[in-house]
């Protein structure tokens, strides 16, 4: 049903990305972020592995969204710096894609699904130029990829929650980025949307992309992601899921909430059985 990614967006930009140096897609050095002088993130140091799917996991208030917003330059850092493929984040905006939390926008806004996906192309269109046919086609291809071709002209409030999330995903695809930040892309979506998103993430990885997701559901971390960053105002542990998803680390991250630990243990066991 879904076409491979390289057929729907311009092939050159996907398969022949200019080779960046071996630099990590995302290096965070010594990042501290504060809201109203109260630090929410302390001394974050992290190097994301290339071509991987990474989950940022942690309890509510751990600073997960704050971390990706600071990486994107949406909120100021009190100290530290962020490098993307070896260059300052500011200089790399053209290759960074973003999927915000679904609740962050007003879905009653007078735009269609296709209009929203076209926004993913805005970074490539001149300031005073309208959205050309070419860009519109590219956006349409991204909508097709997430299975929403039929709903392209629907006003966005007429979409279900899962469909809205897919529209946001399609918009990020339309950016043709190399590194993606996604803020809870699986929050409140139906089973089929969840599956569609997972497939898209895997395909992105297969094409050399790196995706960093804030993720809530510990169950699915081992199944969906290669790497995990356990966060609770500081980095508790980071690395391949199999290495860092240990009861001790989760205990440190979530602080003794045993039900969660049980879930994680079961999930790990399931993932190991499933290979």
């Amino acid at each position: 049903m879904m076409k491979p990614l390289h057929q729907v967006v311009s092939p050159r930009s996907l398969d022949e990305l200019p080779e960046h140096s071996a630099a990590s897609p995302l290096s965070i050095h010594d990042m501290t972020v504060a809201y109203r002088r109260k630090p929410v993130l302390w001394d974050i140091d992290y190097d994301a592995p290339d071509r991987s799917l990474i989950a940022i996991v942690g309890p509510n208030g751990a600073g997960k969204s704050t971390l990706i917003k600071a990486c994107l330059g949406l909120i100021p850092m009190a100290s530290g710096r962020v490098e993307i493929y070896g260059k300052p984040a500011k200089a790399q905006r053209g290759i960074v894609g973003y999927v915000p939390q679904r609740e962050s926008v007003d879905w009653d806004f007078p735009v269609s699904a296709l209009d929203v996906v076209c926004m993913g192309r805005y970074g490539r269109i001149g300031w005073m130029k309208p959205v050309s046919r070419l860009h519109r086609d590219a956006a349409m291809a991204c909508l097709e990829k997430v299975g929403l071709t039929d709903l392209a002209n629907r006003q966005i409030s007429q979409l279900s929650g899962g469909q809205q999330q897919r529209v946001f995903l399609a918009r990020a695809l339309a950016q043709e980025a190399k590194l993606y930040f996604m803020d809870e892309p699986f929050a409140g979506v139906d089973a089929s949307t969840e599956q569609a998103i997972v497939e898209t993430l895997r395909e992105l990885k297969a094409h050399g992309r790196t995706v960093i997701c804030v993720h809530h559901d510990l169950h699915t971390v081992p199944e969906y992601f290669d790497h995990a960053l356990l966060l609770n105002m500081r980095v508790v542990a980071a690395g391949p899921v199999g290495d860092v998803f240990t009861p001790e680390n989760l205990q440190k991250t979530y602080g003794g909430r045993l039900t969660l630990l049980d879930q994680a243990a079961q999930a790990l066991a399931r993932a190991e059985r499933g290979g």
Partner: protein
Amino acid sequence: MTGLGHLALAHVHGAARPRGSLTDVGVDLPTLGEVFDVMTLRAGHNAAVVVAGTTMLGIAAGVVGVFALLRRRSLMGDALAHATLPGVAGAFLVAMWIGLDARSMPLLLAGAAVAGVIGAASVQGIVRFSRIREDAAIGIVLSVFFGLGVVMLSYIQRLDGGAQGGLSRFIFGQTAAMSRENALLMAGVAACAVAAALLLFKQFRLVCFDADYARSLGWSVGGIDLLMMALVVLVTVAGLQAVGMLLVVALLIIPPAAARFWTDRLWLMTAASAAIGGLSGHLGASASALAPRLPTGAVIVLAAGVIFLFSMTFAPARGLAPRALRHLKLRAQVGREHALRALYELAEPQGTDEAGATVGDVYGARQWSEGSARSALRGLRSRGLIEMRNGEAALTERGAEAARRVTRNHRLWEEYLVRYADVAPSHVDRSADMVEHALSPELIAELESALREEGRLPRSVHPIGRGGGDAQGGKR
């Protein structure tokens, strides 16, 4: 002030018309010919200037207001408008002290613009550096600046021997005094607003919809916001003379809010808002040219209000009446589908679609009132889905087909909700025919096989094909 209005527009009515005494508060009814002349800008130079000017102002405000509304900055416009009063008064005083013409319009408007910007910046500053919310900050700035302006006016009144320098006309507006230059200013502002909306449509749209995403693209959201705010300042200052600072915000809010009822497309909404704003300005100025005692600014705002009310009630896309109608239709359709299912389920134990059922059976099965059962059956009958035989309802061939489809969809949804109970109900599209669109073929096949095992799957009317859900075995 009213006297001036009479003088300026006296020739609209012609000398032949006897004018009422000063105590006469009645409004002379204009003739149809006069109405036509004013509306088509042929009722003399001055009336034409006023009508053209306010029309332009309405267009400008309509365009700018769309983005202010969607960016939730409409009330900032109000704070800004009120804050212009001390600016006007301050400009008057400064000009007097340094010996310039204190009544020079560009000077006064420049003062208004400066003070308006300071007012808007104060709101931003309060929100940013304290924990006070925007609505409170707007209320504080709006009233303090306006109070300051009123104090300054009373000071000017003492200096000026009671004339206030004619400044109070900025509070309520006074179209009659509008000059050709003022009208040109409004045309210029309208041109700026339309040009900015056309050239920077993408930027305005994305910043209004999702500012964080715009920032992630590297855009200067602050700069784009500043530009939108500058347009609001332009419209407000240009509108001071025509509608006054108390009411100018209405032109920024009402036309876009009314336009929203007509369309779900941003560019259409912008065009509609410009049209509604322009129409309000035109109607309001025409009305007060015909009846000079009517205050123009207020009439313009009332015209906008009437258009808003009409849009809210009757606009097909989002108006209340069409929505109520759609709701009633949907309820009737749901009622008919329930009745179909009831008929199907009454016949199901016998394994036949032929069994008849009385009205009582139907409303007993659905725990309906007799009235709603009857009206549902009437609807089915008029659509040829059932026949009445000896007071019993029986499904026709088409009706049986529809009943199977409805029952199948209903049971699939039911099964889905039971199995995936953790999915929020808001994610379930219950409009019965949508099951194929909303769920994946694999999921439908899974649900169907579950129903088939229980013997509850009606024969599929249209083969589902994909995913092997070709359910023919539902009914023994």
